């Protein structure tokens, strides 16, 4: 059994990690994976040396509807100036129980 979902990835500063988690909570999103990442982009070098220059990457598998809700919330933040880098891909979910309890 498999189902279609959207894989959404959010790269943001470590400092904003809790802010993003609060959005997940607000939207009833209970499952996500996160890990520390480094890189370079609009906000300069993110070398991972200090908290302020360390990034976190969130990976979530969501239904199209839920993804749009999340993107809308994230965009409100982005308009305020918070640097979140957000993108999504189509994904095939192969874990059966995840298809049943799709958020």
């Amino acid at each position, binding site marked *: 059994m498999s189902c279609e979902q959207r894989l959404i990835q959010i790269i943001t500063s470590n400092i904003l990690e809790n802010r993003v988690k609060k959005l997940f909570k607000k939207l009833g999103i209970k499952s996500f994976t996160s890990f520390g990442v480094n890189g370079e982009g609009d906000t300069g070098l993110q070398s991972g040396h200090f908290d*302020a220059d360390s990034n976190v990457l969130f990976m979530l598998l969501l239904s199209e509807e839920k993804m749009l809700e999340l993107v809308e919330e994230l965009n409100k933040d982005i308009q305020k100036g918070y640097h979140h880098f957000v993108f999504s891909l189509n994904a095939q979910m192969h874990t059966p129980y995840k298809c049943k309890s799709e958020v």
Partner: protein
Amino acid sequence: MGLDAILIPAILFFALGVFAKVIKSDLKFPEGLSKGLSLYLLIAIGLKGGAELANAELGLAIKSIMWAIVLGFLTPIIGYMILRFRDKIDRMNAAAITAHYGSVSAGTFLTAIAFLDVSGIEYETYPIIMMVVMETPAIIIGLLLAALARKQLQQQEAGETVATPWKSLLHEALTNGSVVLLIGAMVIGAISSPEAMEKVYPFSHEIFMGVLCLFLLDLGMEAARRMKAFKEVGVTLVAFGIIMPLIGGTIGMVVAASFLGFGVGGTLLVAILGASASYIAVPPAMRMGVPEANPSYYLTLALGVTFPFNVLVGIPLFYNLSIWYIG
């Protein structure tokens, strides 16, 4: 005192770190080591300072704290006025950048202590408390300046803007890991018996310089990485990163020598507190509280411009100026 002033191992290791990155060496520290080193350095300086503060004069300690608060509030306001002169830098970036200059860099302060230790110059320990106190006022000023700028922008253009999360930001600033560790170590150093403190002497004193060398080697590499962003930051801001420490340091020197009556060593330390820019406590607060500002600007300035300037030029310069000023 000429070039020999900076020929101490700690500063030379900093230069080595910069050099390693310039020649594209693959020299790298294991992940997390630099955080471990900075934890050690804060504990060591806290223990040292606490043990000596136990015998300090209460009146002068309170006076030092009051002046630290004044410096913490005054320096960012001066910095903001400079950055906003002729609208050179927008309000949000000016507020975020200047907050870094009102706060302090423990790394620069420790290098100044190493400089004094190696040179055999005595110094007062009150600047250690001043360093703790100066972490926060600049964050408040930076957030206030940004909130005012936001209000003005809101009047000009309708739209959703950021509500400053004062409570959580102030909580973070006051309970910041380095503040908690430094105050905690100072209290431990102050209340522990001299006999018990002797047991930790090798930890707090003997290995201090060696660990500082490692720490500065790492910061040298990090500073060199940041220097690559000079082009993006622009000449105005790079110039600010050099001019502001000269202004802040001079104010610090006058406060220490004229109002607190410190000797050359203590005066140099307060001058360095005034001259340095935070790269640990303030960036997270600005990232959260002033999201409109570009983090690349303030991190490049604090780490890539002001930190190397203070280590290589500021410390010997303010040492000589302190001797001249005190007479």
